[in-house]
């Protein structure tokens, strides 16, 4: 087991807990905590040398973050 893999899955577990129970329970906190397991899975992919998947995952994560930010902005605007 390479160190990347160990750090990666530690981050995934940590991030899952953090996303499951965010501390101030609002949308933005949860969205930011969501980056933790995403970073963990990046490290796991790195440990398996799946760099092409890693590159695509970065791009898709960025796009899904845009999507969420758009929805959250509109949701918050109503208040």
């Amino acid at each position: 087991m390479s160190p990347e893999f160990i750090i990666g899955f530690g981050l995934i577990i940590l991030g899952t807990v953090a996303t499951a129970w965010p501390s101030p329970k609002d949308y933005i906190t949860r969205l930011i905590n969501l980056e933790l397991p995403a970073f963990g899975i990046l490290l796991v992919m790195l440990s398996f040398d799946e760099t092409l998947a890693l590159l695509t995952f970065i791009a898709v994560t960025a796009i899904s973050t845009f999507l969420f930010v758009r929805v959250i902005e509109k949701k918050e605007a109503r208040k």
Partner: protein
Amino acid sequence: MIIRRISGILSNFTNLSRVYAILVIIVVLAGIAGIPSLDYKGDRLYPKTIDRNSPLDPYDRGGIPFESTGILAEYPGNSPYLGYITAYLTPLSLALASATPHMGTTIVAHPGGIIDEILYATRGLDTVVETTILFVGFAVAAYLFRRREDE
């Protein structure tokens, strides 16, 4: 009595995703005990060979352009040109590969290489379905977006 209660829960459709989550948790909990007995045979198909010194690192699978290279597909007989795409490098990729040893991923993401072989040739039907899913997902979003603009 209990049936009425269950159907009462199921009839509220915000509860249904909750019921589904419970089912998944039960199955995974039951499955955890069996994990140590699973064998790992994952590298029977398309195993990785890592050559850290190659300019194509981590994707160097050998082979000369326009010649085939040995890769392990499920049914080699079904793809007469198996391995040709893996071995192929565009002239630009060749130039990059000889110029610097650090561009392996970029070179493989360029046309040719093992991932293209799997995605386009041996498992091409997967990619057809995948692009269709993308098409449908965006069609829904674009349709809803345009419809509300008309209103």
